[in-house]
């Protein structure tokens, strides 16, 4: 089973993030860039499927030069090869444009599964699995919290508000996973040393056959008009459980008129 995992570099989830007032985009220069935390679950799931069923795992990202660091991390976790779609023309692409560019890049690879996480911690649109499935013309299995692979049949537990649905489809397909599906591994030192020797290919927009008129900030289908900073969080109230924690919590919620 050959798997392409999509990963995205985002501003450190733990750091305080600022928006650049001049163009309403995230000020990426001021914070560390890391792999979108949820993408680590996608990488882990791909590695697990590979370990159980064989095949090859390729990570693909669209992003600036510094995204190479994140690709190395994926390689050090055990991924076989990495593809980096990087081109100035792609800067500022919206979700719809990105899905077009990524689908073009995926088209240059052979795959049974395109695996990605439900959303990234910076944009938080949660639409990429569906957009990609549509572009690639393959079924979509989304919000998976458990995946079983049996030959070309993939069965998932799709997380819902009330529990889960069991959904099944045949490869090739797009698989979107949620957090908690697994516990992502940390790269081992051996993995870190091996990562440098693994293939890392760079694709330009032209290499992937992307029409540059259809991507980039100028023709983006959505844009941020304005923003307001979130109000600072007030100090929380700590409820210490001395045997009566439940009652105290209920009292607190009642006082807030929540129950």
């Amino acid at each position, binding site marked *: 089973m050959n798997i392409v995992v999509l990963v995205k570099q985002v501003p450190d989830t733990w750091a305080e993030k600022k928006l650049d007032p001049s163009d309403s985009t995230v000020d990426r220069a001021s914070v560390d860039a890391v792999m979108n935390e949820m993408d680590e679950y996608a990488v882990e799931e791909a590695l697990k499927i590979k370990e159980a069923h064989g095949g090859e795992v390729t990570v693909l990202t669209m992003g600036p030069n510094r995204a190479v660091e994140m690709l190395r991390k994926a390689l050090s976790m055990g991924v076989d090869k990495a593809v980096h779609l990087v081109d100035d023309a792609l800067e500022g692409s919206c979700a719809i444009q990105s899905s077009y560019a990524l689908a073009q890049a995926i088209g240059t690879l052979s795959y049974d599964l395109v695996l990605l996480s439900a959303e990234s911690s910076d944009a938080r649109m949660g639409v990429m699995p569906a957009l990609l499935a549509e572009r690639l013309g393959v079924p979509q299995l989304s919000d998976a919290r458990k995946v079983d692979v049996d030959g070309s049949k993939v069965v998932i537990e799709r997380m819902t508000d009330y529990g889960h649905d069991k959904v099944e489809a045949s490869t090739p397909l797009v698989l979107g996973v949620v957090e908690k599906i697994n516990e992502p591994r940390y790269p081992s*030192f051996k993995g870190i040393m091996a990562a440098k020797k693994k293939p890392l290919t760079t694709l330009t927009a032209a290499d992937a056959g992307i029409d540059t008129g259809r991507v980039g900030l100028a023709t983006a289908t959505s844009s941020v008009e304005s923003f307001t900073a979130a109000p600072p969080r007030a100090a929380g109230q700590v409820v210490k459980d001395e045997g009566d924690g439940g009652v105290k919590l209920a009292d607190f919620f009642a006082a807030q008129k929540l129950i």
Partner: protein
Amino acid sequence: MLAAAFGEEEFGVLDFRLSDEQEMLRKTVEHFARTVVAPQAEELDEKEEFPYDIVRQMGEMGLFGLPFPEEYGGMGGDYFALCLAIEELARADSSVAITLEAGVSLGAMPVYRFGTEEQRREWLPRLTSGETLGAFGLTEPGGGSDAGATRTRAVLADGHWLINGSKAFITNSGTDITRLVTVTAVTGEKANGAKEISSILIPVPCEGFRVSSKPSKVGWHASDTRDLAFEDITVPAENLLGERGRGYANFLSILDEGRIAISALAVGLAQACVDESLRYAKDRQAFGKPIGEYQAIAFKIADMELRAHTARLAYYAAADRMLRGEPFKKQAAIAKLYSSESAVTNAREATQVHGGYGFMNEYPVARHWRDSKILEIGEGTSEVQRMLIARELGI
């Protein structure tokens, strides 16, 4: 690192940067320390619980195998890689960091440095995977700095060592996963009448091996420290580690390396004090503005950063010499001495920056303060480091 590259350039470049791989290792351990270790630190400290689950995860990441070749289950890295990992762990929790430091440099390293091929094959795969822990017992109730005053005795008869005696404050010696305790023991008398001291491997638990209950310590609460008693323990003659009569000398060379690792640990603690103080000084208000805007506090934090940075350079430099195979005894002693005193000073100052909250155990700086003092004592006291430096200077 630190490679003075005498290439095309006439005068050469001094390079203090980490390689991509070193940086990736540092970041990986930093992330693990921040997201897995730090959230548990307060509870482990309060309950004085050994961090079994964290040790298991560190084993999976290969941290216990960092400086050992792959043929013994190691990761094929080096001692500097180990130091980077220890520094990052100590930024979150000194108890976890010392568990790794002692497990590798006192538990496994003596077997790797002085063991026969058979001993290496028997012990290293288990120790380098973190599945089991090894400990080293040198200190006795009657003497730590004067390690030559060893009273534990081992007598060779009928192909077996018969061991009797006791050891004090032995790290990692009483956990559920401890399987090896290497001890120094008097095995005879030298021609000049001095004690002949040798190292012997004791697979534990075993008949006659007694472990004390946990002592009540000021800090390092989640680290395992025990007193040990040996009552007629017998082990095969082949359990001698290294040459007979070289036990003390061999152990001193292990301590030279270990000092660089302890220095890395101290740097991690010193840096954690900067991190915590910085956060607090920006947030805490007094007389209408953040306390960090008062020069008295800002300068304190600047001095803390100065010590952490300088101490880091000291251990990098010592590790660099060690890995090049150059003499590094003085540099290791300087690194250990400077960084441990920096850690204690930074912890005291960080507590001061936090005011009354710094005295509350729910703030990490309070734990750092309690954890720092041992750094001036273990693996050679500050006085011993000064003796070593002076001796290297020829006085």
